[in-house]
């Protein structure tokens, strides 16, 4: 391959990208969300029955409703199926390393406080490999919205157990059933200092969207936990062969109970899934705390 002159370029020119995009539009037409999506990356990689499409749609609707200046919204993802969200949104977006979306987002926010920074990633990424960053960003009340899509397993790598897998959960690395105590993502965030914590299944799309809107507009560390089907990695090992089976399960087991103490919202196999807004309190953010302290000391 001759890399001397323009070999660093790929074979597609910008015009070809635009042309391919036009062709897609001719075939599929425009979708109301298209201006918020990198349509030239569609179709997405997610499996049929996955809840990520719903979670992303809710997020885009929430973004519109929030009234935020979209040139100043940045989305950061880690690795995994949910980690691909950053690649599909037509916003400044960063696809980082496993578990590290939150510290990357911390740097972005502090580097330009005018940005609204959203971390959109999965449970394995955010509270397993990235658990330390998750609790510390919440502790600092770092100004960011974290959307954690929780499907109780590592989907992309083939359905392995993680820190959220319920006791008894069958995965490719817990073939006899998981026997480790799992994390409750919402309780972890609340205990670490998050000012806004809500949980919804993707069945409750409107409520999910509303919580996402509230979280986007909430100063400080906000968490929206999204309970989502993973028929390929998790559902089919738990008598939910299709995404629809899991949605039916959510319908039967979902209990909306706002204001519940997050410690009482653990999710077990076959048990209820308590949903709602659990935490909504006001507390100065990291940057507000910093400004207060520095002005007290330095402006004397």
């Amino acid at each position, binding site marked *: 391959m001759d890399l001397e002159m323009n070999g660093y370029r*790929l074979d597609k020119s910008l015009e070809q990208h635009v042309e391919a995009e036009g062709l897609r539009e001719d075939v599929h037409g425009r979708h109301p969300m298209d201006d918020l999506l990198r349509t030239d990356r569609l179709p997405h990689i997610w499996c049929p029955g996955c809840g990520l499409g719903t979670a992303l749609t809710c997020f885009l609707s929430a973004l519109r409703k929030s009234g935020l200046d979209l040139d100043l919204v940045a989305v950061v993802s880690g690795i995994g199926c949910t980690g691909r969200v950053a690649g599909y949104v037509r916003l400044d*977006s960063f696809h980082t390393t496993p*578990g*590290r979306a939150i*510290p*990357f*987002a911390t740097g972005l926010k*502090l580097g330009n406080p005018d940005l609204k920074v959203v971390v959109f990633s999965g449970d394995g990424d955010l509270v397993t490999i990235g658990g330390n960053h998750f609790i510390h960003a919440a502790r600092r009340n770092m100004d960011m919205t974290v959307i954690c899509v929780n499907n109780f397993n590592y989907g992309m790598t083939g359905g392995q157990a993680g820190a959220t897998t319920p006791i008894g959960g069958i995965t490719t690395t817990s073939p006899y059933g998981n026997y480790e105590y799992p994390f409750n993502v919402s309780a972890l965030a609340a205990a670490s200092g998050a000012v806004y914590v809500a949980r919804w299944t993707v069945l409750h799309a409107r409520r999910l969207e509303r919580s996402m809107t509230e979280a986007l507009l909430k100063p400080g560390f906000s968490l929206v936990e999204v309970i989502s089907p993973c028929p390929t990695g998790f559902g089919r090992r738990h008598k939910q062969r299709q995404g629809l089976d899991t949605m039916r399960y959510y319908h039967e087991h979902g209990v909306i109970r706002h204001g519940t103490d997050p410690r009482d919202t653990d999710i077990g196999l076959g048990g209820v899934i308590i949903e709602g807004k659990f935490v909504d309190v006001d507390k100065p953010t990291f940057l507000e705390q910093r400004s207060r302290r520095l002005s007290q000391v330095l402006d004397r």
Partner: protein
Amino acid sequence: MKGTENGVLSGEFFMQGDIACAEGAICAGCRFFGGYPITPATEVAQRMSERLPLVDGIYIQMEDELASMNAVLGASWAGQKAMTATSGPGFSLMMENLGLGIMLETPCVLVNVQRGGPSTGLPTLVSQSDMMQARWGSHGDYSTIALAPSSPQELFDLTIHAFNLAEIYRTPVLVMTDAEVGHMTEKVVIPPLEEIEVVSRRKPTVPPEEYLPYRVEPGELVPPMAVAGDGYRIHTTGLTHDERGYPATADDSAQWPLVQRLIDKIEKNKDDIIVLEEEGLDEAEVAVVSYGMAARTAIWPIQMARQEGIRVGLLRLVTVWPFPDRQIRELAGRVESIVVPEINMGQIVREVKRCAEGQAEVSSVPHPGGGIHDPRKVLEAIRRAAGREGGK
């Protein structure tokens, strides 16, 4: 210090190396430091925590070095000049996201005040044993820039230089200093702001709809960089990506041009990047090739050897990576032998041997760390290299 509006603390100081490093960063325009305390690099963080709030900068102590490196990358993508400083154990943790920085082409500076290893090793004592980790520590193929200061003054100067190189080549630049230089207190001169050359990254000139974040024009190797909030709505990923920044992982069609360019943008600009310091090499039969603290320890033995009639000179590698292959090859062609003292068990000497291509005898003067070379050992090595048997 409150009076330094532009951030530059001009004047003459009796200053510790680590502190000079922090001051250099501030002179270079660094306004973000994300770090984690670790001996012997802690003073860099301490100084930054004190200084940055005075110049509208942000200091944040992260939860670990994984987070520190990521926060630095994030800040750079928000348009800031950003830095972190660490030592061996933290450097190991940073390898993951040093790779991300290289892949995303993120300008930033990583300072490693090296201490003895492996593992926790010798927290308070010197070594230069991370030199190969600096080159090869993160997985995958890439090239890198690493500088090796020999004094607090140079730690100041090279930190500024590191930021400039990072901005020009859009890559993390490593300042590979050591506990001895970092904790050494010496005269440091900080020039007035107008005498300090500061370079900033190239921004795109085309409108967003025409901008491809990883496209280079023919003849170029470093793409212009739009950051978050510029309105370009960029996407970037640690996956192998095409010119749009989109993942391209189905085959090697994007891998070739991307990895080749990441390497070439440094290797093909070696002549502009590499800084070497030569002393007394014109008629030399023996050359000492060294860097950082070890090069400083070599000064006295070189003088002693000359008094004994040995024609010996010093080639000091200010830039260690990219490696000065051509210069070492030329040197090996005109001297009889090369002596390489370094505070490790023989890392850079391997590169010197490779480049000497058998034209000159190359010998290592190793030290496992925990102290600097006994200058007499270096003198003995020079004597042996000059054919004075027994080294005495």
